[in-house]
């Protein structure tokens, strides 16, 4: 039933969807530092948008490796579009995609609900925090400030890359376009026998 590995169709669809998000990622940059001066890490609430390619692509195509590929592709798209953050987006994209992928793998690529996607968003958040720890000395912030920073990022990630990504894909399912993408399931075969 399910073929091993990604076929060209899967890769191309993932990359195309991811590059769309790559443009969103690029546009998100100016928005992020426009919100920043409002103070007290409000900007962290919208950070989660940078995790959304992985979760949306996984929900759409439902195959192993798609989340990682999507996040890397989206980061590359952002990078090639001339991101203000330059090189670091490639590293962030890779690590964020990897942790999201690991969450999906932990459920053996069998669950496609809000909870799993939100958990993947949490995974990506942890990945970004680990890099921030090395790059941004975030451990040197005052503790109340650091708590606010981390808390806001987790909340934003779950809302945007978890819940919102899920509802986006649900809406896409209504258009029927997702039937083109997903591997045939056991139910599909069962329905033929009826």
């Amino acid at each position, binding site marked *: 039933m399910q073929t091993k590995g*990604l*076929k*060209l*169709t899967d*890769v*191309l*669809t*993932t*990359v*195309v*969807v*991811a*590059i*769309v998000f790559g*443009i969103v990622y690029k546009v998100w*940059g*100016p928005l*992020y*530092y426009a919100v*920043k*001066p409002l103070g007290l*890490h409000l*900007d962290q609430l919208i950070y989660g948008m940078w995790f959304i390619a992985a979760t949306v692509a996984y929900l*759409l195509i439902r195959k192993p490796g798609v989340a990682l*590929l999507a996040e890397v*592709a989206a980061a*590359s*798209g952002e*990078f*090639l*579009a*001339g*991101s*203000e*953050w*330059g*090189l*670091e*987006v*490639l*590293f962030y994209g890779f690590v964020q995609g990897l942790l999201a992928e690991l969450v999906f793998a932990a459920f053996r690529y069998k669950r496609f609900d809000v909870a799993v996607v939100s958990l993947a968003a949490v995974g990506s958040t942890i990945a970004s925090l680990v890099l921030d720890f*090395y*790059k*941004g*000395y975030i451990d*040197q*912030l*005052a503790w*109340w*400030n650091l708590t606010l*920073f981390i808390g806001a990022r987790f909340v934003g990630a779950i809302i945007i890359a978890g819940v*919102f990504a899920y*509802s*986006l894909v649900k*809406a*896409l399912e209504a*258009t029927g*376009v997702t039937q*083109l*993408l997903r591997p045939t399931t056991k139910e599909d075969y069962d329905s033929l026998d009826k």
Partner: protein
Amino acid sequence: MRWGIEHKETWLHQTNPTAKLLLFLPMFVVIVFVHNPNVLINWTIGFIALFMLFSGYRMKHVLLFFVPFLFIFISTSSSMILFGKGETTWFRWGLIHITEESFYRGVHLGFRTLLFAIFGLMFALTTKPVLLFYSLMQQAKLKPKYAYSFLAAIRLLPIMLEEFQTVHQALKVRRAAKANGFRGKLELVKRYAIPLLSQSIRRAQRIAVAMEAKAFTNERPRTFYYEVTLGKYDVYLLVVICTIVALGYYVADMFPYVAIKDVR
């Protein structure tokens, strides 16, 4: 990706894209483990000089490219300056607590981000995406199905932009291009995203079928329309980067701007 801005083809454009990527990427790791602000300031000066002299773009364009960097510099350094830990207090007002340590740490972070941004911009402005993916296939043995997928996706971008315009105008004429409140804004994002994504997926499917028919997937040794090789310019780049890195360390040691050697 270059936005069609007029420029000269300098030796930086002639370097091998994979080599350039492999020279730039380790710099991220190197920079993250530098804690001396003097070194970072010197490197920033050095690489900005490299960019201005050899990117082949006109000075007024280069200065325009640098405008967003200013925002990033301020936005990355400000949190640390205002809320960072430190001993020597300079200023305290409510939650804001500026110390000498947090100030230098903040500025250090600003320069760090600035350096990443310069490397990113230098790469993006001197590399043709098409040659990057051809080079990745030839030098880095990236599988053709990935490389050609990226190339196809990049070619689809103008169509997507056009579609975005169409959707935007269609919504505007129906007075549906604006929304209030947080929920409203999310609804609005969907209103744009659903048609754009569904059309992109359909198009990707059609293109994928065509590409499979034309054997873009086969893993056997293949020939390439663009032959990308390594050359003397890659050596130049290596030498230039090493020189700037070494000089930065030397100057930071001999003529420091600030007395602090470690901002942690």
